[in-house]
């Protein structure tokens, strides 16, 4: 018989209504054997007391229902963003709130590079900078000998220096519209959309494929998760070859890998008649720490990029309605095939027209073939109202709400994209609760940082970057928010029988915190220190 370890904590918040609070949890074979006081496991035989966590507060390991693996590996580039952020190694990177700070930060990073390496930055966001646009002259101040490339946080734009422009042969004669030119007719250094960014990326070796599935990408994703108290994390758009799968099995199976990985197959790159079979094949290759089998589908774009599909009255500034990345009739077709085959879908829906379409498509698929209990998940759900949530509840569809948007983009949504009325009811957690739909909240890391306590804070406080409250009526309680980032997310991944609460029989996955998020001021939930995790009974302190 395996050994029993009893972890002692200052407090254990279990999320199990049968025993909401405890001080000790007993673990055997990576699973929870008993919960309660010091003697909780006495009846099970001899045990060892572990006091390593006795001054901490334990919660169920957090579950991030929508992130991307590149959230870790993107840190191999220099951070140039507006907000403070913490890298996988735990270093705090101060947000850069003006162009001079961006230049100073990149110049400092350059010291670490050899002479023939390009300087690559990420995370710059012009929407927050009211001064002049970043241009090649700023970046020429950093180097006139190596290419300097700053990718913006939306990954749709970049700015490069003169060396990089020359490398791609961009000049006043370039005819591609994405090569932005100044009043002097010369390229400014700003490049818009992939077509114009592509020649640069090819020449400086910027390949987004390297940011996923590779061993170092997985390791740093694991570090990022651990630092956020996350023990189960999704990678919601994964191209998985058989070689990738064995690599993922190998790395996640290592005893030092701290997080359970749940990748969803990119449903847009496999022919429609083959996706379901591929997903079922992948599911059969799942292990304890690697859960395969779900498929991700795209519908529309993003609200801040004015490409989400919105219902009337559409965009606040009168911009044309957004775009479908997948044609509506293809969404119906794919949904029907995957649902009939019993494959769970995660469907990206930002605008309310897109979420409505996805609900319609699932309902149509169910009318042909009930196939109950698949728990399809609408992802982002930013403009859904109680009406759409009720339909989801009726149909057994789950929703994953993008609460971090309230802080990161809420001011812009009120002023620019949707106007004040609809901005106030965006990412409507209270409506989801009222409708009785199964829901969770997410970061979409690296779009916003992976940090479930911060996401919970967003759902509780609904505070924007400028400090305004956006939609008082949609605030939820701290306990409801903690449920969303644990059991709520676990439910959307078909894992609520294994993780999401601290109760007998489940995995010994805990978030190790420095304080109690239920007794601190709600405004301080985001500041509760995360000390690490316990994953399958293994302690990972940061």
């Amino acid at each position, binding site marked *: 018989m395996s050994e029993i370890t009893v972890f002692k904590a200052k407090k254990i918040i279990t999320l199990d209504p049968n025993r909401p609070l405890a001080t000790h949890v007993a673990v055997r074979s990576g699973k929870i054997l008993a919960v309660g006081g010091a003697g909780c496991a006495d009846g099970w035989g001899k045990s060892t007391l572990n006091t390593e966590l006795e001054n901490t507060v334990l919660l169920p390991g957090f579950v991030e229902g929508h992130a991307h693996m590149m959230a870790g590996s993107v840190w191999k580039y220099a951070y140039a963003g507006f907000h403070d952020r913490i890298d996988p190694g735990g270093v705090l990177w101060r947000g850069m709130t003006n162009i001079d700070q961006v230049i100073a930060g990149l110049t400092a990073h350059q010291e670490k590079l050899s002479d023939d390496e390009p300087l690559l930055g990420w995370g710059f966001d012009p929407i927050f900078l009211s001064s002049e646009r970043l241009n090649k002259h700023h970046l020429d101040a950093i180097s006139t000998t190596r290419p300097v490339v700053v990718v913006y946080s939306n990954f749709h734009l970049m700015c490069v220096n003169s060396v990089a422009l020359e490398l*791609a*042969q*961009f*000049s006043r*004669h*370039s*005819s*591609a*519209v*994405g*090569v932005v030119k100044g009043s002097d007719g010369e390229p400014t250094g700003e490049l818009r*959309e*992939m*077509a*114009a960014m*592509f*020649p640069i*990326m*090819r020449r400086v070796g910027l*390949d*987004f*494929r390297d940011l996923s599935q590779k061993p170092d990408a997985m390791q740093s994703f694991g570090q990022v998760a651990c630092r956020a108290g996350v023990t189960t994390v999704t990678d919601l*758009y994964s*191209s998985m070859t058989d070689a990738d799968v064995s690599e993922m099995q190998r790395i996640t199976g290592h005893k030092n890998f701290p997080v359970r990985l749940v990748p969803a197959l*990119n449903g*847009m*790159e496999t*022919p*429609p*008649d*083959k996706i379901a079979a591929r997903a079922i094949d992948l599911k059969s290759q799942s292990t304890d720490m690697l859960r395969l089998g779900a498929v991700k589908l795209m519908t529309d774009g993003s609200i801040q990029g004015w490409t989400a*599909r919105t219902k009337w009255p559409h965009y606040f500034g009168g911009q*044309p*309605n957004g*775009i*479908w*990345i*997948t*044609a*509506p*009739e*293809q969404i119906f077709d794919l949904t029907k095939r995957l649902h009939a085959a019993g494959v769970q879908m995660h469907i990206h829906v930002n605008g309310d*027209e897109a979420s409505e*379409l996805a609900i319609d498509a699932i309902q149509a698929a169910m009318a042909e073939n009930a196939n109950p209990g698949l728990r399809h998940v609408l992802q982002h759900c930013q403009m859904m109202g109680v009406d759409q949530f009720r339909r989801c509840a009726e149909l057994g569809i789950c929703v994953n709400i993008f609460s971090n948007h309230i802080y990161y983009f809420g001011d812009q949504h009120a002023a620019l994209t949707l106007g004040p009325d609809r901005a106030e009811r965006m990412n409507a957690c209270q409506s989801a609760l009222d409708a009785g739909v199964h829901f969770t909240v997410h970061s979409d890391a690296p779009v916003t940082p992976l940090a479930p306590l911060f996401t919970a804070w967003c759902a509780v406080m609904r505070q924007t970057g400028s400090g305004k409250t956006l939609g008082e009526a949609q605030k939820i309680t701290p306990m409801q928010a903690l449920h969303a980032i644990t059991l709520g997310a676990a439910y959307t991944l078909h894992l609520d029988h294994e993780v999401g609460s601290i109760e007998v029989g489940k995995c010994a996955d805990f978030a190790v915190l420095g304080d109690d998020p239920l007794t601190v001021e709600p405004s301080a939930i985001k500041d509760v220190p995360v000390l690490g995790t316990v994953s399958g009974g293994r302690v990972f302190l940061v």
Partner: protein
Amino acid sequence: MTPPPLSVVVISGYLGAGKTTLINRLLGQAAGQKIMVMVNDFGAINIDADLLKSAEEDTLTLTNGCVCCTMGADLFLAMGDALDRQPRPDILVIEASGVAEPSKIAEAAKAEPDMRYGGIVTVVDALNFLRTEADMRIGAQLREQVIAADMLLISKSKNPDPALISRLEMLNTVAPLHVDAPLISALLLRQPRMPSARAAIHAEYVQWSFEGQKKMAFDDLKSKLDNPPDGAFRIKGFVNSDADTAWEVHLVGKTVDVRVCPPNPSTSLVAIGLKGIFHPENAENWWNSNGR
């Protein structure tokens, strides 16, 4: 040695318009060109068994030197792979998804030094276009595809509804052709050459060419190319500017791609179009006129 640039042709059109049928035809009529085709689903690609050399999970290799592959997760990464492929193909034909904005793909060919713009072809379903265009959900995206086209091809009817033709004329000045019209593959795939370089051209082609010492500044050349002679589908060549500079010219349909290159011994330009639509004397007047 650096291989010659890769010419990129984008095939656009809504679901079911007939993009795959056109691609099948292009593959069969490659005429010595190494074509690489990128499609979403090659279950629909129909290769004669005797033309198929090998089939792997995501690549079909043909005996005529052509290759057909799936796009994978990211079209641009796949484009990079096409450029790095040994030997590099002559032409990359990309099947855009049913709702893709083809110009967003084709722009890469203008931006990338190792690629050349080969045109956007939009296939229009004669039976369904007007109905789908009226659909509030997707109408705007279908219109974009028609507006961006350098070549508009009508499928599914030899006698399309006049209402469709007038609608297309409102959206794009390019005259629509039937998808089965002769020489479409030739117009898309064959690079026009100076008359001396090759034997006689096909009887249904019309060609105009110039060779001489004419020199032009960028702005003058650009405004000339922005108003090309009627019916010229392709214009290609080199136009000298000054002692150090010349312009490499590619025009396809209504799209102009001009790049800087080293000067040549002379300026040479060739234009092609279909008989009855393109008239060489118009091209001659166009070339000799001084107006912008």
